[in-house]
């Protein structure tokens, strides 16, 4: 049979396979590429960076003493050149308070998310990996934690630790002990949801062949969990962690709004709203600015979380 004429030099068929294919991308690079195409997620990410710059960079413009300086002669002033966001009921400048309040709110959000992540992933991993009695026990504990109302736990812990946690000084800022209490309570009451997600991930990944192979070659349990299963289940953990920062910030706002959170004069976006509804007719700037900032940061975190969820989705094919 006549052989097909070999292709001329320089055509595509001459190139070796290594040169032809693009080098394989790691999960991070793939995720970043898909994330970049998501318009809303980009917008959210930019918004988030701006807000963080506002909260932390604004510390260079206003000192903390200025944020807490009460001047009752200047109380409840409308926004003006001197006080761009107005003054509150005791004459403190609202702009400076939103800057320092933002630092605390964002800090509480991030730390509470870390607490939740550590507890939730640990419980979910152990429960999903070992199964059986340990699984049942841990799942019942998880259900019990869900049933206890958050507000109640917060009230109890706030009363219990009220006097005993002193003010902490980090990086030159003093935080009242109630910040630690709030972080602990938010972390301790939100881990069940993450634990359930991690558990279901572990239950399904555990059945794969490569885990069987790892076990057959004598890999220790902790290595199987941390080096094999956990990296494969990282996607929902990342998404859940991102969204839980938003929910932690919102929770802190609710709690401070009810008067159970961080005590003044330390400002957070939540406790600036405390009692502001009494002044709704006279001083709209009291609640508008902190409230709008909370809404903005939660919105941008939600956008970023949504974008991450789409980018990390193994079923989507777009690069």
């Amino acid at each position: 049979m006549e052989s097909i004429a070999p292709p001329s030099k320089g055509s595509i068929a001459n190139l070796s396979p290594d040169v032809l294919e693009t080098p394989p991308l790691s999960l991070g690079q793939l995720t970043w590429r898909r994330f970049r195409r998501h318009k809303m997620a980009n917008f959210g990410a930019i918004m988030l960076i701006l807000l963080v710059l506002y909260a932390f960079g604004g510390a260079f413009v206003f000192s903390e003493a200025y944020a807490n300086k009460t001047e009752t002669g200047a109380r409840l002033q409308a926004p003006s050149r001197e006080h761009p966001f107005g003054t509150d009921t005791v004459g403190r400048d609202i702009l400076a308070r939103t800057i320092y309040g933002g630092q605390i709110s964002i800090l509480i959000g991030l730390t509470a998310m870390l607490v939740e992540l550590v507890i939730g992933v640990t419980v979910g991993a152990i429960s999903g990996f070992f199964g059986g009695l340990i699984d049942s026990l841990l799942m019942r504990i998880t259900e019990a934690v869900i049933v206890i109302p958050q507000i109640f736990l917060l009230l109890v812990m706030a009363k219990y630790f009220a006097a005993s946690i002193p003010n902490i000084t980090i990086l030159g800022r003093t935080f009242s002990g109630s910040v630690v209490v709030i972080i602990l309570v938010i972390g301790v009451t939100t881990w069940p949801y993450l634990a359930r997600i991690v558990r279901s991930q572990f239950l399904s990944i555990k059945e794969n062949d490569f885990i069987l192979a790892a076990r057959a070659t004598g890999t220790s349990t902790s290595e199987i969990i941390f080096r094999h299963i956990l990296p494969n289940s990282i996607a929902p953990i990342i998404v859940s962690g991102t969204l839980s920062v938003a929910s932690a910030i919102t929770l802190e706002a609710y709690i401070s709004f009810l008067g159970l959170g961080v005590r003044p004069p330390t400002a957070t976006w939540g406790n600036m709203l405390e009692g502001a509804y009494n002044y709704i007719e006279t001083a709209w700037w009291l609640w508008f600015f902190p409230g709008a900032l909370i809404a903005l940061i939660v919105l941008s975190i939600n956008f970023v979380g949504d974008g991450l969820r789409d980018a990390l989705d193994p079923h989507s094919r777009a690069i």
Partner: protein
Amino acid sequence: MTRYILRRLLQAIPLLFVISLVLFFLMQNMGDPIATMGGRNVTRSADRERLKRQLGLDKPIIVQYLYWLAGNDWAKADLDGDGIAETPGTRRGVLRGDFGLSLVNKKPVTQVIWERLPNTLLLMLTAEAMILIFALLIGIYSALKQYSTFDNIITTVTFLFYSMPVFFFALVTMYIFAVNFKKWGLPYLPTVGMFEPTAGKTPLQVAWHMVLPTATLSFGFIAGYSRYIRSAMLEAMGQDYVRTAKAKGLPKPEIVYIHALKNAALPIVTIIALDLPFLLGGAIVTERIFGWPGMGRLFLDHVSRGDTPVVMGILMMIAVAVVIFQLIADILYAWLDPRIRYT
């Protein structure tokens, strides 16, 4: 299935016991109910001792828990301080249906809760109905008209509402509809309480006062659920059986509502079933802002004053409701989806 239900119910009993124990212990840190009993005057120490003995607060915590659970009419309390127990108690305990008397106002706990429960239920059930109707409408319409202008607007708006904290929305709506409408002379929505004291508690008054709180409660959930419904509907409409139905020439409403929606509704049903028991706790923030006399405010008031019987009553009610509704959600899911089998 019956065996599964029985097994879950049996598992629930120790869970409820443990929860009640934990909650009872947590309540002990909540403040001293005796401190406020003297009314305006500070309670004298002799009175304090006497009250403690009468209310059984001088016993160790585990004994107090036992009395709460099983009553104290089988035990004698020492009421006159001579060290000899002689008076039998009057409480029959939770296990026999007696939740005790409130430490704050001496009314039976069931009466105290019953006064506020209908208000909360009214608000919550109306809000839930609104949420279901609007979320379904918006979600389905958005899924049918994917990527149209309507869909894009709705997506942005729902994201916005979903991210807004409840009190911000409440304050904004209060500002627009109550304060500014009043200034501009339009009929304005009231913001406080259930009814005007002068007009009395008529259905019209209650309905008018309910508009803002219901809207505040529902908007966040409508936003969240409608997005969920939209994605579930999109997934269902992309299935092969919908393509077959269209090929067979079935009318569009039948395809959407009878075939696609039934299958898309499964996860939504379970989410709603799991959210319902928390309605009993009331929406603390919304009730605080709008002055609605409901369970949320009751809870806050009594917790801060250390009123154990009332708080335990509310919490156990919510705990039982959560357990039952979780079971209902699981059963509903198994009933709707014949592929699911519980061992």
